[in-house]
């Protein structure tokens, strides 16, 4: 049994028909329940549920504060290599792109780490493209060894690995894993991942499970909104998170909602996700999985992030640079993976969080 079985159950499910059959009373019933079933999540994700968005928000806020209090976890990304052998049609890093490739040396990683740590960040998320030959296990372990001096939590968002590789990284000091399915729609997945290891839908889908088995204490997943139809994507992502929570009860599960904008890389998204739908998805997920972590990155604008604080989010990145060497090595001229929209400093974002009556939490883990 794996999450692939769940995906298969919904392969022929007529989402459009279901969503258009949902009534307001179905939605209200789902909203009143303490323990939500998958069809409740569907009801709350329907277009019609936007009519009760405020009620969803009130309940979601209450649930979030019960479990997380008035706190927001803080982190920053660190891109160490943008070599990539995948061909994802929507990504500026893809192997067909002639962008200059960079990989940081261990010394350079330390320079970056020092700058990020001086900003106050204690939780770091390390990113690479998918090119294991460029970033072999030995290099990754050395990276972790250096980062341990500066950070109290190390997360990775790299290429999917097997369980043993994850176990090695876990033993080296990595505690959390981020991997996005990009799209849960198998047909679209095939169309947008032309080659490379990433073309294997199932291998990628089961990556969080391999990470959980290897012992990571937290796993962060999500679709990239823009590729598949948003409603079904949000639904399957929600089920995926729930599946992980129930299968690995000792793992903290979180979801992210990166969304493509028209501007990004000149590649137009098939579907755009409006702010209103974005918020609706967060709220629906929160009600479906009360303990769920929800991360929002600097892809989102400052004004929008300020408003999201009361709507169930639990983690923010801040001060982010999304290009290799972006923090300390200014002359590298690397290509950013995505344009940062919220360009405020860590201090500025923290001040905003405080001003809104929340506590930014920088350290919430200990490497032991």
């Amino acid at each position, binding site marked *: 049994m794996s999450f692939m079985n769940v995906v298969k159950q919904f392969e022929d499910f007529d989402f459009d028909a279901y969503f258009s059959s949902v009534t307001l009373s179905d939605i209200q019933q789902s909203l009143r329940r303490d323990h939500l079933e998958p069809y409740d999540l569907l009801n709350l994700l329907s277009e019609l549920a936007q009519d009760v968005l405020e009620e969803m928000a009130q309940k979601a806020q209450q649930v979030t504060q019960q479990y997380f209090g008035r706190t927001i976890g803080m982190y920053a990304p660190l891109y160490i290599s943008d070599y990539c052998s995948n061909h994802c049609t929507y990504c500026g890093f893809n192997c067909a792109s002639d962008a200059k490739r960079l990989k940081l040396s261990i010394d350079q990683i330390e320079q970056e780490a020092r700058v990020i740590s001086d900003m106050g960040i204690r939780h770091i998320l390390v990113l690479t493209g998918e090119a294991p030959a460029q970033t072999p296990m030995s290099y990754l372990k050395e990276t972790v060894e250096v980062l341990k001096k500066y950070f109290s939590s190390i997360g990775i968002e790299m290429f999917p690995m097997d369980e043993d590789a994850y176990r090695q990284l876990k033993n080296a000091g990595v505690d959390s894993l981020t991997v996005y399915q990009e799209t849960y729609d198998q047909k679209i997945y095939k169309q947008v991942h032309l080659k490379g290891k990433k073309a294997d839908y199932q291998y990628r889908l089961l990556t969080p499970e391999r990470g959980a088995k290897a012992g990571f204490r937290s796993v962060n997943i999500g679709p990239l909104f823009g590729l598949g139809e948003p409603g079904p994507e949000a639904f399957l992502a929600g089920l995926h998170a729930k599946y992980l929570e129930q299968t690995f009860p000792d793992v903290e599960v979180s979801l992210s909602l990166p969304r493509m904008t028209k501007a990004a890389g000149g590649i137009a998204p098939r579907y755009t996700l409006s702010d209103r739908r974005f918020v609706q998805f967060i709220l629906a997920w929160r009600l479906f999985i009360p303990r769920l972590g929800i991360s929002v990155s600097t892809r989102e604008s400052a004004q929008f992030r300020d408003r999201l604080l009361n709507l169930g989010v639990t983690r923010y990145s801040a001060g982010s640079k999304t290009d290799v060497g972006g923090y300390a090595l200014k002359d590298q001229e690397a290509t950013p993976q995505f344009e940062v929209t919220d360009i405020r400093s860590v201090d500025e974002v923290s001040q905003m969080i405080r001003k809104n009556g929340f506590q930014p939490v920088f*350290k919430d883990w200990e490497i032991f």
Partner: protein
Amino acid sequence: MIEKQKDALVLGDTEFKSRLFTGTGKFASRDFITPMLEASQSQMITVALRRVDSSEKGDNILDYIPKSVTLLPNTSGARTAQEAVRIARIAREAGCGNFIKIEVITDMQYLLPHNHETLLATEILAKEGFVVLPYMMPDITVAKQLYDAGAAAVMPLGSPIGTNRGLEMKPMIKMIIETSKIPVVVDAGIGRPSQAAEAMEMGADAVLVNTAIATSKDPILAGKAFAYAVKAGRMAYLSSMADEKNKASASSPLTGFLRK
């Protein structure tokens, strides 16, 4: 277990006048912690080691806790006894003192403690000289085993962490109170001062309250309210108030005229 004259709670070598333990998590701002401690007169506060940043530039949560208040570092994040033991040792090395609240949780959905791993960690840490306060599912057998393992107190949960549902485990906790040779601190789930008072009336030696104080609109006032409730509950317990009865009992008994 209780000396009525003095009525202080002793854990390890430390005497506590206040029977309200508090926590540092979930506050909208760390600036609430110091005035909350003052208002509640709490003399013991728990802090997750994972949140302690003792690096030079970090915002150290310990700086918000006056020296007169005893630190109760907890092992939040531990999923096994071994992890709890490692966290406890790090806490001691980081200067957090000798007290440790063992928290081993393997279920992130409900956040319930794992009694078996908790017991294993208690055995090890008590031998290493820690004052061990294990957070536990109220199970009378485990409470006894924790005592044998060297725990300084047991901390059964009232209801799941953060739920504010009060003493859902009341009958089980009552049995532990009736039989325990070490203090019983009701931890988790206490959402209102009345629930704290209820635990104290029942004979709990202390209560630990965090979420209810930290997430209230006015944590300072809430801290004070809990302080009063805990005191009132304690006094009620010490005064040996009459038990609840199922039927009314007349204040002028019918057989009162029959002299012995």
